[in-house]
């Protein structure tokens, strides 16, 4: 779980959907310690402008420590990243953060992974780890339309029960991913990553039914190492859970750092 700063070559970069890229970065031993839900901070571009690293979830890690991230080119930094070709090098800080907590033992109770759009990639790593434990998760994904659907092949490869929803019905179920979640019979554990609104809906679904649920949060980050306090998220302090020793907050709530205590939090804990 110890992070490293390293420079590594791009082994491959492919455009897999409109504005969405699959980036394979060269191996580093630190990446072999990565767990699902953890992320890396990439220094995009060789200069101090853009200044800050960009956080991306680890999509999967190969046996040699090479790893992939899937990202949407949307602003200054990701546009620069999208222009890089195989052979160019990228500086990486990672693996970072606290990822998903896996079940203690194989279980036959339904485990559901809920992904929304570009929040899907870390669920690939998670599905692979569950599959290695002998668990076949239910994976429900939501996208705006058929052109935006990503990662389908990875989930099929690890034997997941897969269902996909699109906002416009151009692929799979016509509607919201949370509607797919409601169709699953008695989920025992839910993992979710996606836009904040989706996470709030999934958390509400799980909390009202007392289903154990973990959500991966997103905030703008500077350091990614827990020092700048730029990435904090409001969480409940519920007895008997003790407050984080270094955390501060108000009555009944405390800040936690998305880059350190997160990005994955217990859904019952997050104040949306």
């Amino acid at each position, binding site marked *: 779980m110890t992070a490293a700063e390293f420079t590594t070559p791009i082994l491959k970069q492919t455009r897999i959907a409109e504005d969405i890229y699959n980036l394979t970065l060269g191996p580093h031993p630190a990446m072999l310690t990565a767990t699902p839900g953890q992320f890396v901070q990439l220094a995009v571009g060789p200069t101090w402008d853009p200044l800050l690293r960009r956080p991306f979830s680890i999509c999967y890690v190969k046996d040699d420590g090479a790893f992939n991230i899937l990202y949407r080119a949307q602003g200054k930094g990701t546009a620069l990243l999208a222009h890089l070709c195989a052979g160019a090098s990228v500086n990486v800080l990672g693996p970072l953060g606290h990822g998903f907590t896996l079940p203690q033992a194989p279980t036959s109770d339904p485990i559901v992974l809920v992904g929304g759009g570009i929040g899907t990639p870390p669920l690939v790593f998670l599905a692979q780890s569950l599959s290695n434990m002998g668990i076949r998760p239910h994976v429900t994904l939501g996208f705006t339309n058929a052109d935006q659907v990503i990662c389908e092949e990875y989930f099929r490869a690890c034997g997941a029960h897969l269902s996909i929803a699109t906002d416009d019905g151009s692929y799979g179920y016509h509607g919201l991913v949370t509607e797919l979640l409601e169709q699953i019979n008695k989920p025992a554990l839910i993992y979710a990553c996606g836009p904040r609104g989706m996470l709030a809906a999934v958390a509400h679904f799980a909390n009202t039914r007392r289903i154990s649920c973990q959500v991966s949060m997103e905030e703008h980050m500077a350091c990614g190492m827990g*020092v700048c306090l730029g990435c904090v*998220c409001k969480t409940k302090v519920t007895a008997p859970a003790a407050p984080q020793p*270094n955390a501060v907050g108000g009555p009944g709530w405390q800040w936690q750092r998305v880059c350190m205590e997160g990005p994955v939090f217990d859904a019952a804990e997050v104040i949306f």
Partner: protein
Amino acid sequence: MSTTQDHETNLLVTQIAGIALDNPVMVASGTFGYGREYATLMDIDRLGAIMVKGVSVTPWTGNPMPRIVETPAGMLNAIGLQNPGVAYFCREALPWLRQRKPAVIVNVIGKTVEEYAEVATRLDQEQGIAALEVNISCPNVKEGGIAFGTDPVAAAEVVAAVKASTSLPVIPKLSPNVTDITAMARAVVDAGASAVSLVNTFLGMAIDVRKKRPALANVMGGLSGPAIRPLAVRMVWQVYEAVQVPIIGMGGITCVEDALEFIMAGAGAVAVGTATFRHPTTALQVCAGLAAYCKAEGVTINELVGVAH
């Protein structure tokens, strides 16, 4: 036994406000936590000093989110000095820090003169602290929230109160959000400052044009990073000509050349802040670069301080 490396690093040995430093490279307050977070990534014992995150009497919750936004070659932050308070610092952070080699400089914050003095009093009971850096950029609650750091009288009052509460050297950290930085420097030196550190962040703001709202929840924030370097170098230059005490220079340092600019403008030591977020080992690289530079030029670091004047 004296190796070439020892000789090179000896060129960097210096003193600021009576604190002996192995080298003049520090990490700036608020950009290195309490030191522990980065210790897994690098050999922090090679730093000259660690300036820890601002410490207040009671825990401060800081500002609402969003707290940071990237700007050209810089960033704005409005963290609001979130920190778990002096008791936590002494109990949880200091025992680890004092075992490390770098000098520990504690950044002190408060909303009233009394609060600053109280933190200083509490810290005075502790071993292993080299100096107090007094962050006068805090809002003065009694004066309607205007920063202590923009009023020479209020700044001097804070410095004098801290000075009276501690046996440690007192290093006020100047805010650059003033018309005449030399007036502030003179005021705090007259009040007993052993050194000054500058600069803190520049007040700025950004608008999120998609949301048609300020990008930061706090509306305004402090600008840091390479974007502010020429402004910071200018202020170090001016303060060097105005007062006799040593200067710890900072603002956008990313490499040895940047650090040399500050040193030649008059800084006896430098601190790396925002650059650490991008490359955690920046301060160590600056340090190695200074050693190589001094060796190549056949000078000690002290001989370079203010040479551009």
